[in-house]
């Protein structure tokens, strides 16, 4: 392993999820360490989205355990998952289009001040500007309205938000699916910046090139089964493709 | 209500044939003065000309009837050299009427003609106008607690009783004084329609022993007239006649009769309306329309207000005559009531 000193921030043991008689995930185990990027790959319908929803608290697993920092947790809803320090960047980004960037970064967790708990816009703007600078998300200003931004900028904001609030883990669901080449490169830079913040990253992507550029390890799913986990440095595309397709 | 008074008056009228307007009484029991007695003299006109007097017409709604009243008032004001500076429509909303009054007062009118929407809400609403010194002439309704002379110049209204009575007379004549009739009345606490409806009923019961009212149906929403008429006809398929409280629901009753293929049940209703008149002149179910002289009403309102402005004595309660319109006098009737030609469709169908 890369860094044996740190305990995994996320540890999934023998996760199984069935919807009625249909088994979506069977016996899945994986751990993600602080500062590590793990990619989850597999064909459509392999069970990636189901896994993301289990980790983010949307679905409860039928059996198996989820541990955060070694502590077993139950996550009945998304709020609980966030309380455990897990943030998700959804494919649809979950941004409110007509609000400025800073309100989106603090959506649902707005800062207030004073006895009447009025919004502390100044503080939110300041933190937003610091964060987008740090993650190199190029936007016109913290006041810019989301609907005026490009796809890459929006993706950057969504990742920045997850980064800001995540203490343990960020889940990225197809972060560059809708982006052009230049914007993809920009987002990949942002993801790489997360490593330096000692946060675990679990990324779902269809692009193997991207997976090889970003990840430390690759976990392959096929039809709900865990086919295997490889260290990115010690494998190649051919092996991963054959694991995905089963041929 | 005042059924006994009305019955007594009715009996008196049939016995000694006193003038028709005698039976309609004001909201507080005032006796009626015919509108023909409220006339601006040449001296009045001379006294009003060139004074820069202004008038406001604050109506409760927009309708054919109100247009005719306003035309009568506008012409009379013009004759006296008085400018009509404001015209409003409250859309039956008491709060809007109050706002309209306040807005009109900014233009400082000397005379205000209006139909107060209801006695309770309008009592406070018109206070500002009284304080501003405007002469108030009300159409049909009186705000609660208002005193003639100090608070307002006059109430002017239709000869309500005569309208109901003449409707009874024309319907009775069309069915030969014998048979069964239905009575569709306005189901609301509104003394204008209440008096007209009750006058019809009282006249049938007192004057026409051969006619029986076998079906009574209240209506509050004219749009439901057709279904109510259908139900009435289902229970009483052999009705000889139906009285409908005013022309708009009469359209619905006509529709019900037509869809039932009924050409024998006679209809009488109040107010002039093109579709109902068209049926009448084509020899359909409608045998008569009883109208008020709306134009004359407006003229009398303006005249009463201006007389008040000149400090002359104005009778508290003024009525404009009723008018029975049948297929024979439809052209004249339209002129007399609304001061304009009957619709072309009605004239050409004749």
């Amino acid at each position, binding site marked *: 392993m890369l860094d044996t000193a740190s305990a995994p921030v996320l540890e999934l043991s023998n996760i199984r999820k069935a919807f009625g008689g249909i088994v979506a995930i069977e016996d899945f185990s994986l751990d993600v360490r602080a500062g590590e990027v793990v990619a989850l790959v597999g064909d459509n319908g392999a069970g990636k989205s189901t896994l993301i929803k289990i980790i983010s608290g949307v679905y409860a697993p039928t059996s198996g355990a989820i541990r955060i920092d070694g502590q077993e947790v139950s996550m009945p809803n*998304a709020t609980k998952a*966030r309380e455990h320090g897990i943030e*998700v960047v*959804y494919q*649809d*980004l*979950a*941004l*409110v*289009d*007509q*609000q400025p960037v800073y*309100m989106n970064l603090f*959506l*649902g*967790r*707005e800062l*207030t001040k004073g006895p009447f*708990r*009025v*919004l502390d816009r100044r503080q939110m703007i300041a933190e*937003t*500007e610091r964060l987008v600078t740090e993650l*190199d998300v*190029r*936007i*016109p*200003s913290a*006041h*810019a309205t989301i609907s*005026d931004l490009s796809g890459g900028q929006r993706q950057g904001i969504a990742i920045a938000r997850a980064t800001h609030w995540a203490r343990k883990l960020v889940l990225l669901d197809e972060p560059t699916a809708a982006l052009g080449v230049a914007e993809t490169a920009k987002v990949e830079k942002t993801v790489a910046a997360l490593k330096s913040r000692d946060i675990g990253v679990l990324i779902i992507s269809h692009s193997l090139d991207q997976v090889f550029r970003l990840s430390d390890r690759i976990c392959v799913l096929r039809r709900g089964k865990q086919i295997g986990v490889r260290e990115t440095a010690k494998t190649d595309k051919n092996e991963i493709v054959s694991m995905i397709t089963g041929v | 209500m005042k059924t006994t008074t009305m019955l007594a008056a009715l009996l008196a009228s049939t016995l000694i044939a006193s003038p028709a307007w005698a039976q309609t009484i004001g909201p507080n029991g005032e006796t009626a003065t015919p509108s023909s007695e409220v006339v601006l003299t040449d001296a009045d006109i001379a006294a009003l000309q060139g004074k820069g007097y202004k008038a406001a017409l604050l*109506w409760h709604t*927009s309708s054919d009837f109100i247009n005719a009243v306003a035309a009568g008032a506008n012409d009379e004001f013009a004759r006296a050299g008085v400018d009509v*500076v*404001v*015209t*409003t*429509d409250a859309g*039956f*909303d*008491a*709060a*809007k009427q*109050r*706002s309209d009054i*306040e*807005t*009109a007062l*900014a*233009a400082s009118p000397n005379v205000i003609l209006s139909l107060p*929407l*209801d006695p*309770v*809400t309008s*009592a*406070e*609403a018109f206070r500002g106008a009284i304080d501003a010194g405007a002469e108030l002439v009300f159409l049909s309704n009186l705000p609660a607690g208002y005193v003639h002379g100090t608070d307002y110049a006059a109430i002017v209204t239709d000869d309500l009783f005569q309208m109901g009575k003449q409707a009874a007379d024309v319907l009775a004549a069309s069915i030969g004084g014998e048979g069964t009739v239905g009575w569709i009345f306005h189901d*609301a*606490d509104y003394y204008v329609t209440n008096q007209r409806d009750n006058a019809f009923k009282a006249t049938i019961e007192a004057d026409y022993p051969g006619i029986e009212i076998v079906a009574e149906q209240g209506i*509050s929403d004219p749009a439901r007239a057709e279904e109510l008429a259908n139900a009435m006809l289902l229970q009483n398929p052999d009705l000889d006649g139906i009285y409908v409280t005013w022309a708009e629901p009469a359209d619905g009753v006509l529709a019900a009769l037509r869809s039932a293929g009924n050409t024998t049940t006679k209809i009488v209703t109040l107010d002039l309306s093109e579709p109902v008149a068209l049926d009448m002149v084509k020899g359909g179910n409608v045998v008569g329309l009883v109208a008020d002289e709306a134009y004359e009403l407006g003229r009398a309102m303006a005249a009463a207000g201006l007389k008040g402005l000149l400090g002359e004595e104005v009778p508290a309660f003024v009525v404009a005559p009723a008018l029975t319109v049948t297929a024979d006098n439809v052209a004249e009737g339209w002129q007399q009531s609304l001061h304009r030609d009957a619709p072309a469709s009605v004239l050409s169908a004749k």
Partner: protein
Amino acid sequence: MSASSPAAPASPVRALLARINLQQYVVYVGFLAIFLFFAVVLRDSGFLTQRNLVNIVLQTAPATIMAIGLVFVLSAGDIDLSFGSTVAVSALCAAMAMAAMPAAAFPVGILAGLGAGLLVGAINGVLIAWLRLPSFLVTLATMGLVAGIGRSLTQLRSIPVTDPLFTGIFGSGSLFGVPSLVIWTVVAVAIGHVIYRQTRFGAHVLATGDNARAAQVTGIKVSRIRLWVFMISGGLAGLAGLLYAGRLQAAKYTLGETDLMTVIAAVIVGGTLLNGGKGSVIGALVGSLLMGMLNNGLILMGLSVSDQMIVRGLIILVAVAVSLREKTR
């Protein structure tokens, strides 16, 4: 990392333009233009008298209060069609309660009026937020239901309101020379504006209307927000009912019913989007005043009733067209 600060705008002017949303200023420009027009055309007809200008504010006070509620409902992505009939029922409940208990008229009047409004709001809110029924249909139904209850409460009769304290505070009274209806308008707009713009609740309302799923996944209790906005709308309709009852010194089943379209127009012209996520309480106030000023000015111009309606309709059309054009810019 690049040398230029990412947060720094490409051009300061463009950033400023991005911050100033022209759409929200349409109503102010329109208000000013129409005011100047009337001031010139009607200079001899009493339009500019202090009394007339105060009257406009007094006349629009109930509509402005309703408009604040509608800003919250629309911003949350819902619609309320029932507030107009709620006004009448609230006014009637207040008047009946005061008639029943003349000794404690003032408090029972307020309680009954606001209580009726909040109850309608709660019913709307529960049906919409918890049973997930579409707000258009729910409030269309409650609009008719409440209007029917209003009619049956008193068999269409008007109820007089005679308590001097009540008619003073909600109607014709004044404090230091300022009419009470002006005070109510200012206080309601100020509180509404602060809640809308300066609290987490206001931010959550906007997020709910903009992207309910995003709001949900970021931990905003969307159902609770939707319930609250209908409670606010109902409560403010109740307050508007009290103001009408105080101003007319009577309650009637028709109160507020004709305000529905005026209030919707005022709120939309004031920069609130019909499909949620964006709005302005101050804009709604100016929109409401604009509507009142239009009514007032067109009447004083001596136009016939039908011409008043045509001109008013055209002006609203222009205002809406301009504000929506700005939005899609």
